[in-house]
């Protein structure tokens, strides 16, 4: 079973397909869960403590908006942990404020720089695109360690 970073990190479709084909999707939910389940912290809404932006400094300089560093403290360790990645290029749902936009750019950059197996594709908008989308993801995931042969 490989750890596959999904972009956008909140994607239902990618999370489902990765776990359906036998791998572990790494996304926002797991990072948030880790913070929610850590006892002794109570800093709503996301249990982000002053330690998190410090972790984010590893990925973004101090003059970068603190929102980017805060987000990178969630995504950065997951990118380092990932064995592979799937990026959806036309993900409108990843749209957000400048902090989200810069974090998204940085996440994609870091994934490409790590030189792990990476699949980039667009969301399907027809049945035929859906068939291509699912077939491409299945083929990609089958090639990863522990994947089910296509």
């Amino acid at each position, binding site marked *: 079973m490989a750890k596959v970073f999904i972009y956008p990190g909140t994607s239902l479709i990618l999370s489902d397909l990765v776990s359906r084909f036998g791998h572990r999707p790494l996304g926002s939910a797991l990072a948030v869960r880790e913070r929610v*389940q850590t006892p002794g912290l109570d800093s709503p809404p996301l249990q982000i403590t002053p330690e998190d932006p410090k972790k984010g400094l590893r990925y973004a300089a101090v003059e970068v908006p603190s929102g980017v560093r805060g987000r990178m403290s969630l995504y950065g360790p997951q990118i380092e942990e990932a064995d592979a990645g799937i990026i959806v290029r036309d993900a409108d749902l990843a749209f957000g404020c400048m902090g989200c936009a810069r974090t998204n750019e940085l996440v994609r950059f870091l994934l490409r720089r790590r030189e792990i197996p990476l699949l980039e594709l667009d969301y399907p*908008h027809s049945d035929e695109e859906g068939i291509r989308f*699912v077939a491409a993801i299945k083929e990609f995931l089958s090639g990863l360690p522990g994947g089910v042969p296509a």
Partner: protein
Amino acid sequence: MSEAAAAGSAPTHAGVGPGTVAKYVFVDSPELTAADLALRAYEIAPAVQIKETCFGLVIAGAEAEVDRLVAEIRKFDPDRIFVKDRGFPPGDERRCRANLGGARPGFYGHENEMRLVRYVSSGLRALRDPKKADLLRAKPKREEEPLSPERLSAIIEES
């Protein structure tokens, strides 16, 4: 800071303890409603916390139990049931719309993707016919693809 957290004791929210997981279950099937799914889920895993929602379920509990439940409920309609991890447990006041007002944070993202899952369902169905999947993957992408008579007839039959 809450009293429990200040005292360094267990988390203040049910189902938040280490080792528990929460997941969303989305159902986009003409043959299965969220209510049906909730009833069947209760039968399969009584120890798992199950919340019925407009789109499906939110389930929370021990990881092994939740994974077993997910594997079982996927069997009811494998191509049209989608599962995703969730950070917060069901009903958490930091996320539940009953406390916040307006749509739950994350709702719009799910709404956006739920418009596309029907195409993913088609892709999953086609996986059982590898030749068709291979053929379509090799086919060049077109900008506008008209609705085929076969697909129109399939939609009519489904509804």
